């Protein structure tokens, strides 16, 4: 079920204190693919971050369908996880971009939101693409329906041949 995600490298021009430059992300994604037993589809991206300026222990924020949220970290601070759930009936398949921001990016984003400016001017430090191949909701046609249709077909053919013979 694990799908390996391509690594995206986005360079950031701001170097200020604890910011991360040249962020490289290695991500492993998981999405629920069986919608017959779950009510909501889970989207999970586990990733590790390495910065070219060696900055460590950076708290990240991600833009997901819930808005801008803080990213969960493992207790040793090395692995991050972005996750959310969507309703199984309305979830669409395809690529879901997740933009990651550090503290400066998050502050700039909040400032842009308060001033009602366009938030896409703030550059994320990295982007993860989470691919959801679509969840299996059951077969298009039930096999019992196919069996009944085949039986009706055979019966109809036999009946027409018989009436043609008898008439």
């Amino acid at each position, binding site marked *: 079920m694990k799908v390996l995600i391509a690594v995206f490298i986005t360079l950031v021009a701001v170097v200020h204190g604890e910011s991360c430059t040249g962020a490289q992300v290695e991500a492993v994604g998981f999405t629920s693919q069986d919608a017959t037993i779950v009510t*909501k589809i*889970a989207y999970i991206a586990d990733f590790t971050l390495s910065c070219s300026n060696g900055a460590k222990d950076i*708290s990240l924020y991600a833009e997901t369908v819930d808005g801008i949220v803080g990213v969960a970290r493992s207790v040793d601070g090395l692995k991050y996880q972005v*996750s959310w759930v969507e309703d199984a009936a309305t979830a669409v398949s395809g690529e879901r971009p997740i933009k990651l921001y550090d503290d400066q990016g998050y502050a700039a984003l909040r400032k842009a939101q308060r001033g009602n400016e366009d938030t896409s001017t703030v550059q994320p430090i990295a982007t993860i693409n989470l691919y959801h191949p679509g969840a299996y909701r059951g077969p298009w046609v039930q096999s019992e329906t196919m069996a009944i249709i085949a039986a009706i077909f055979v019966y109809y053919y036999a009946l027409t041949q018989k009436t043609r013979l008898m008439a």
Partner: protein
Amino acid sequence: SQVAALVQCTSSIITHTLSVSINISVSPPARMLSYLILALAFVGCVLSEGEGEERARLLAAKRVHNLYLVEGRDIVVQYSVHNVGQAAAINVQLTDAGFSTEDFDIAGGQLQVKFDRIAPNANVSHTVVVKPKKYGYFNFTAAEVSYQPSEDSAEIQIGYTSEPGEGGIIAFRDYDRKFSPHVFDWLIFALLMIPALLVPYMMWYNIKSKYATVPRGKKGRSD
């Protein structure tokens, strides 16, 4: 910290009282001043107990988003943490020890995570997908949340999420018997029906091919 402040207050009051009683022999204006200082210390002490109570308060919920719990298939568990206090919660750690590795495989997500900061009136959500290895009744227990209630507070507050309760994990073969499309079974059935259908068909076809069909004259045409 509150107990320490209380001790500090009472000790300062006691020293002021002692100094005032020692200064009884001093002139009346100085005595009035010392009484005033004592009163102010007392009032200041009482008032200082009430301030600095801005704390973060976290409410956490754990939900299982499944229609059926099936052995070997996904169970989607979502934890959501809301901060209903006035201060930001620092170093929030969420630990779920309820899914032991001998009974569950983790398909995605981590069971022990931390959030650096949850702002007041903000919430975060965390999702984990596990697959059970065994079937039977399973009690979904609460996960533990620990956090610092404010930035300058050193104490760790521990809380628990809500408990989803007990659920029955169905054995895979029971689920499969009830819900799978059984395409293979239908193909076997078709294969078994073929001799029963083919034999009469061949008999009829052999007889029919010996006779040509006579075209019947159309009604109403007479020559």
